[in-house]
């Protein structure tokens, strides 16, 4: 009964779903762990997998603007023009404006600000309406919650995340959100874990599926290679 979509991470679909996809469709997965263990790379791979299969992607970026994203992705040798900047790729860029870069919105590029989560949610609504008119299913990434928490009250970020999750799920989307372990109060961290559907922990060596709709706990070793994360 559970439809699983491909994560884009070599080895992960086999680990979770026996090969036929891994992340349950229309759910939200929390990717968390210490800094620099591959959470953003996981996000790129998840988004890229959708784009190459013609699925739209709504990317909410609080850490990197469009230029930085393009550069980060190019590092892995993926065809940037088929990825960032394509008409299937919708970007809410919440960081460029605060670094003083002049940006203007287009049909699929929405500048916003990490200082203003309400504005991010408004832009999200606009983007989702456009995506829905194109495709009944899509992917979404929110990378990262940690940056939003650095600029806002932590409980406000939990409320914003709740709205994000409701909007994505009601519209048929499947999302991942990233969070740096230990950066928020433990109560807030527990809330985050409670409101998402699935939880994946990365620690630099092992990937642990702490919770996944329809499957138990799983653990496997992973490497970050020149083509992204690869699960053994």
């Amino acid at each position, binding site marked *: *009964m*559970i439809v699983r979509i491909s994560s884009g991470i070599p080895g992960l679909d086999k680990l979770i779903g026996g090969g036929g996809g891994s992340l349950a469709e*229309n759910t939200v997965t929390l990717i968390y762990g210490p800094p620099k263990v591959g959470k953003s790379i996981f996000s790129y791979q998840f988004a890229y997998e959708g784009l190459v299969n013609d699925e739209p992607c709504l990317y909410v970026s609080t850490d990197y603007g469009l230029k930085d994203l393009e550069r980060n992705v190019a590092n892995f040798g993926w065809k940037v023009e088929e990825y960032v900047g394509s008409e299937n790729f919708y970007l809410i860029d919440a960081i460029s404006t605060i670094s003083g870069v002049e940006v203007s919105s287009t049909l699929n590029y929405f500048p916003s600000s990490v200082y203003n989560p309400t504005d991010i949610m408004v832009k999200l*609504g606009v983007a989702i309406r456009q995506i829905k008119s194109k495709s009944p299913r899509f992917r979404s990434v929110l990378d990262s919650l940690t940056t939003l928490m650095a600029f806002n009250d932590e*409980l406000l970020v*939990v*409320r914003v995340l*709740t*709205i994000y999750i*409701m*909007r994505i*799920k*009601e*519209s048929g989307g499947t999302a991942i959100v990233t969070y740096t372990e230990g950066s928020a109060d*433990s*109560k807030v961290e*527990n*809330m985050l*874990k*409670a*409101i998402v559907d699935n*939880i994946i922990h990365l620690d630099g060596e092992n990937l642990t599926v*702490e*919770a996944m*709709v*329809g499957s*138990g706990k799983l653990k496997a070793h992973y490497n970050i290679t020149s083509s992204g994360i690869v699960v053994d």
Partner: protein
Amino acid sequence: MFMKNNSDITNLGDLLGDIEPGKIVLLYGPPKVGKSIFCYQFLYSGLKGGEPCLYIAADYGLRQLEQRMMEFNWFLQPYIQSGEVYIIDILTRLAGVKIGDSNAVKFSSVQNLADLMVKVGVGTRSLFRKSSKFRAVLDSLTMIFAFNPPNLVLRLMKAYKNRVSEANGIGLVVHTTGTVEPQFETSLMELADFKICFDGKSIQVESSAGKKSAQYTITDEGIKCWGIE
């Protein structure tokens, strides 16, 4: 609470025994240990046994609730149509979706607890007229705590407890441990007549009748337990 006979493959009936009407059951534990699945099972076994149910969907909207129950082959739609389940969905409006109320499904808001209580009142009255006993599920307090001051949530719980016991229902309330300050968790524990703790491996049950425990696992057919002590 659950059928205590050979057809009860889950053994939950043996573990929980009979819970008297008018009581509040607090189900608590860390995230992702099966608390919501227990709620679906409690809801569905009640409906199948002819007990109507009030369900406050506070973790998932109605659509998600139906979808998640279907993963266990528990179909909610016939009971919504017959009015045996009365659902108050306090999340879907957050998605900006415009849907109107129906007889069995009401939309409220996680930010408006007064409106929620009004709808709980209407719901409990309507179920009370249908049946001398009914079930009420609130899954869960997590989002309610995220959107409201904890003291207000405790007042909501007291009002909710009164409503459910006046109408002779059994009220199941879910709380994720570690999401609020310890003193509020203590107050929640004090409000409950019956406590069930899930920790991922075992279930602990605590009531005036004493304590029991069992191991459990989540299967395609819901939660099953064994080794009751």
